[in-house]
């Protein structure tokens, strides 16, 4: 039995409505408890902001990121955020580290932990190469992990939707999650991945997918039906059509509206829209490009069925990586950048392109503003998950920098002062004076994730929750984040303590211990007769079209370290 007493912490825990109150936290065997014995190890947290461990709900940290590493060996030496990037020699406690946007697996674990983050959700697992994602998960120390499996251009999915077989579709989703050991349903540019199989794209929700006679809207509605039928812990997680195109805000709102009538099967949103920054563009071309954030925010303020995340841009080098194959090809041609592509048979596409966000580029400046506008114009922080879609908008190691933008209008004005007039004319950010407080920041970085992913033991400090705790050397009330943003950045860049399951993993910004995290995956129950009917269909797919055997397709148990199987009951 191991016990820890965190004394006199300045606790900020929105899940319990606690806003920076001084209190003790008791830990026993990795869980938060009511009280501990006198033998408990004491951590003095007086004067320190204490929150639940951060939870990055949408990050590219395992699988596709390896393509990014592979094609960008020059990223290894980039040290743009000292202490959280670049080359670091091995020590007795830690493996060697490299990288900035595409760090090696060890660096990902250490650096998230230094930021006080303890859980991540990989945003895209192609079913066929899921084993690879899990192999990388295994080498990411400290963090708990989960991943979202891609279903948006999957042949079997599209056929079941076209043939109106909702039960088999649900059975297939359940099987796909099991095969890939995924946690939820990710839909990227629905139908676009299949169109990209022929070098094309779909243009919107009602543009039929070539050869499959379904529309993106039908794919979305089919998959959300299956998602709710299976009572999955997470809602569908949607990367909208037309990403990265001027004028796409309309598609985004249209997509959100599609879900208004969907009844969620659990106490959570029925739709999560991801990296909305990339999907909130107005204008008709890059010439008259401008922010669409006000329109999108207006809609979200009046809706209560959805959540979203930002995809905030960070100036400097980034690496875009997405299952949206056509978008990456377009990026590479427009920016004259190197381009990797990986179409996945019968399932999806993907691409990787490095780029550079420059404050001197009016497009990049407006993109930067849009992310912040979304965060600040949407009134209820319980709808907003903070992300940079790392490393698409920028590397996660810049989160502390981004927090200062959210918390300080003065800081934003400083950045904005470097923009061109053209950029300023295309954004509304300069007119926004809202400044988030620590409580709202905690909502966006840990509390909402608990709710969005139905993980009640995460993202809060309730008795019974996992003792994943971040203690920052900063005291709300003693400092003013609207002016002392450098202190905010410093405190969030390296915790005084990070605890993972009650183990001190970071102390004074340095790695103390590197325990292995868990893997969460969902096993949704489906009636045997429906399952076996579905299996017959996919057997045919394997026989005729896949190049791997079905028996070699499923990710085996040995790839999951500390697996946590989340069972759900399908409703048929």
């Amino acid at each position: 039995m191991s016990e820890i007493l965190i004394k006199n912490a300045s606790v900020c825990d929105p899940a319990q409505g606690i806003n920076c109150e001084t209190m003790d936290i008791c830990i026993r065997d990795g869980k938060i408890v009511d009280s501990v014995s006198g033998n408990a190890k004491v951590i003095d947290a007086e004067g320190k902001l204490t929150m639940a461990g951060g939870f990055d709900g949408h990050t590219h940290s395992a699988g596709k990121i390896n393509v990014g590493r592979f094609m960008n060996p020059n990223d290894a030496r980039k040290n743009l955020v000292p202490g959280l990037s670049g080359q670091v020699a091995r020590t007795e406690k830690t493996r060697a580290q490299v990288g900035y946007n595409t760090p090696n697996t060890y660096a990902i674990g250490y650096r998230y932990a230094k930021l006080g983050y303890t859980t991540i959700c990989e945003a895209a697992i192609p079913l066929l190469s899921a084993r690879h994602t899990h192999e990388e998960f295994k080498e990411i120390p400290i963090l708990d992990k989960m991943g979202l499996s891609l279903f948006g251009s999957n042949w079997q999915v599209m056929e079941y939707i076209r043939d109106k077989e909702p039960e088999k579709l649900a059975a297939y989703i359940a099987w796909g999650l099991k095969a890939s050991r995924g946690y939820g349903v990710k839909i990227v540019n629905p139908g676009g991945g299949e169109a990209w199989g022929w070098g094309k794209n779909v243009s919107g929700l009602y543009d039929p997918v070539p050869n499959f006679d379904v529309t993106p809207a039908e794919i979305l509605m089919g998959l959300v039906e299956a998602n709710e039928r299976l009572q999955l812990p997470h809602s569908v997680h949607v990367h909208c059509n037309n990403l990265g195109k001027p004028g796409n805000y309309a598609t985004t709102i249209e997509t959100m509206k599609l879900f208004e009538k969907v009844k969620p099967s659990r106490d959570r949103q029925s739709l999560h829209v991801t990296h909305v920054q990339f999907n909130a563009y107005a204008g008709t071309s890059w010439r008259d490009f401008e922010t669409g954030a006000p329109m999108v925010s207006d809609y979200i303020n009046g809706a209560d069925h959805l959540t979203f995340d930002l995809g905030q841009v960070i100036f400097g080098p980034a690496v875009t990586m997405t299952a949206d194959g056509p978008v990456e090809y377009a990026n590479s041609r427009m920016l004259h950048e190197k381009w990797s592509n990986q179409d996945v048979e019968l399932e999806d596409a993907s691409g990787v392109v490095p780029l550079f966000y420059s404050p001197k580029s009016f497009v990049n400046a407006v993109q930067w503003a849009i992310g912040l506008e979304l965060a600040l114009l949407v009134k209820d922080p319980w709808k907003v998950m903070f992300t940079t879609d790392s490393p698409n908008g920028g590397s996660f190691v810049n989160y502390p920098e981004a927090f200062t933008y959210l918390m300080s209008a003065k800081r934003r004005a400083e950045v904005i002062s470097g923009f061109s007039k053209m950029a300023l004319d295309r954004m509304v950010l300069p007119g926004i004076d809202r400044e988030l407080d620590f409580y709202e920041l905690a909502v966006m970085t840990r509390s909402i994730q608990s709710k969005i992913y139905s993980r009640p033991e995460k993202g809060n400090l309730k008795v019974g929750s996992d003792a994943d705790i971040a203690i920052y050397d900063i005291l709300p009330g003693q400092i003013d984040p609207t002016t002392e943003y450098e202190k905010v950045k410093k405190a969030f860049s390296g915790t005084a303590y990070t605890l993972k399951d009650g183990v001190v993993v970071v102390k004074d910004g340095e790695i103390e211990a590197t325990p292995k995290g868990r893997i969460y995956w969902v096993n949704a129950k489906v009636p045997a007769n429906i399952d076996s009917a579905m299996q017959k269909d996919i057997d045919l797919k394997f026989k005729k079209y896949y190049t791997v055997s079905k028996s070699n397709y499923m990710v085996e148990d040995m790839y999951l370290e500390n697996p946590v199987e989340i069972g759900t009951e399908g409703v048929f």
Partner: protein
Amino acid sequence: MQVVKLSLKKANKIPIEADNVNPDNFAGKTTEEIKAIPVLYGNGQCPLGDLFNVEAEGSDSVENTKIVFEGDVSRVKRIGQNMSAGEIEINGNVDMHCGSGMKGGKVVINGDADSWLGCEMAGGEIILNGNASYYVGAGYRGESCGMRGGKITVNGNTKDYLGEHMCGGEILVKGDVGLLPAISNNGGKIVIEGKATMPASEMKNGTVIINGEVSDLLPSYKEEGTEEVEGVTYRKFVGDVNVGGKGVLLIK
């Protein structure tokens, strides 16, 4: 003026990484202090003085510091890396990455240089009185910009990929070069007195002048008449058409 003389105590096969060996790091230091500067030798560090005889005379600013290598240092890498001023003279062959990332000052090599001479150089001057190997004035793996300023003069020959990804500065080669000089470059000027093969592939911008024989001119250049440079008439090629290039390739 401060002059520091270095000579290897013993010839080595395992390379020494001398990225600490430059005027910036030596200026104002005594012989003993210089001997204590750590260098990497294989997988371990050791003081410079364990591997080199060191003799420092005088004490002065970086600008007025000169480092002289006596004898072969063909397994000492990164001499003069990132130097900002002062001078390095090498009387012998030198290993890879000499003058890499240098920003100012001067490096004179009286011998041959191994690959990546003046790689990612931003300023200053390198004079090589011998032959160079691969990637003179090039960039690091995956980077889109190599040499961006300064001047490299090679009085002998070089091998392949001269000035790869060059974005600025000037390279002059008195002898022949190997395959693909000026590949993927995006600025700067390269003059080759001798022979070259497949020059200026994917050049976006910049000027390449070749006085010697050119083999295997790539089928991605438009011939656009002639141009006269310093009294010499050259055939003028513009390209590379496949990257919408505005580079100018002048061939005798």
